């Protein structure tokens, strides 16, 4: 069964450093998303991406965040200058149509020291 994959599973970084989280969505999916989950809290939407551009973004997704689909398979989330409060699980999700079920990857745990 096809699934969303994410790398790395765990990323530790120093405050102020740049990180890139990577995702490989399910191959025939067209809509891509990033969500984050701070420990013990609910999953929060960050950004949606379709047709090589951002469709919607949340208040969390400020100028320090960017997304890219550099090739036909990868979907990345970049945080330019990490802050302590960026520590969270980051989940990538994808779907065939924006009204259909989103399938989530296993997540990347980002720890900012």
């Amino acid at each position: 069964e096809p699934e969303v994959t994410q790398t790395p599973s765990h990323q530790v970084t120093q405050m102020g450093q740049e990180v890139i989280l990577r995702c490989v969505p399910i191959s025939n999916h067209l809509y891509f998303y990033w969500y984050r989950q701070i420990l013990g809290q609910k999953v929060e939407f960050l950004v949606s991406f379709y047709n090589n551009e951002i469709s919607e973004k949340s208040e969390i997704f400020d100028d320090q965040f960017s997304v890219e689909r550099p090739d036909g398979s990868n979907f990345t989330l970049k945080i330019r200058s990490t802050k302590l409060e960026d520590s969270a699980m980051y989940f990538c999700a994808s779907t065939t149509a924006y009204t259909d079920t989103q399938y989530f990857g296993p997540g990347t745990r980002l720890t900012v020291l």
Partner: protein
Amino acid sequence: GESVGLHLPTLSVQEGDNSIINCAYSNSASDYFIWYKQESGKGPQFIIDIRSNMDKRQGQRVTVLLNKTVKHLSLQIAATQPGDSAVYFCALYNQGGKLIFGQGTELSVKP
């Protein structure tokens, strides 16, 4: 804005019993709802969904009920097993296609 709330943060049941997890939402225009299961250290896993033109949908051992009048959603798990232990989230789609998640109910199954 839209919000999704769960009634209980934790639920403990005996193995073999039925579990019911409840969820309330605020936006009466919401038309697509999903239940996700999240095991420790993993991403949300799709369980079952329901659209607003239905009030009940059944899967394998799971049933979702939707009451649009009171804006309430529930997940019923029949014959709960230890493998069902996880955090369960209800989520709804907003018009932009993003998911709005509730806080989650942690289900513990006692053997």
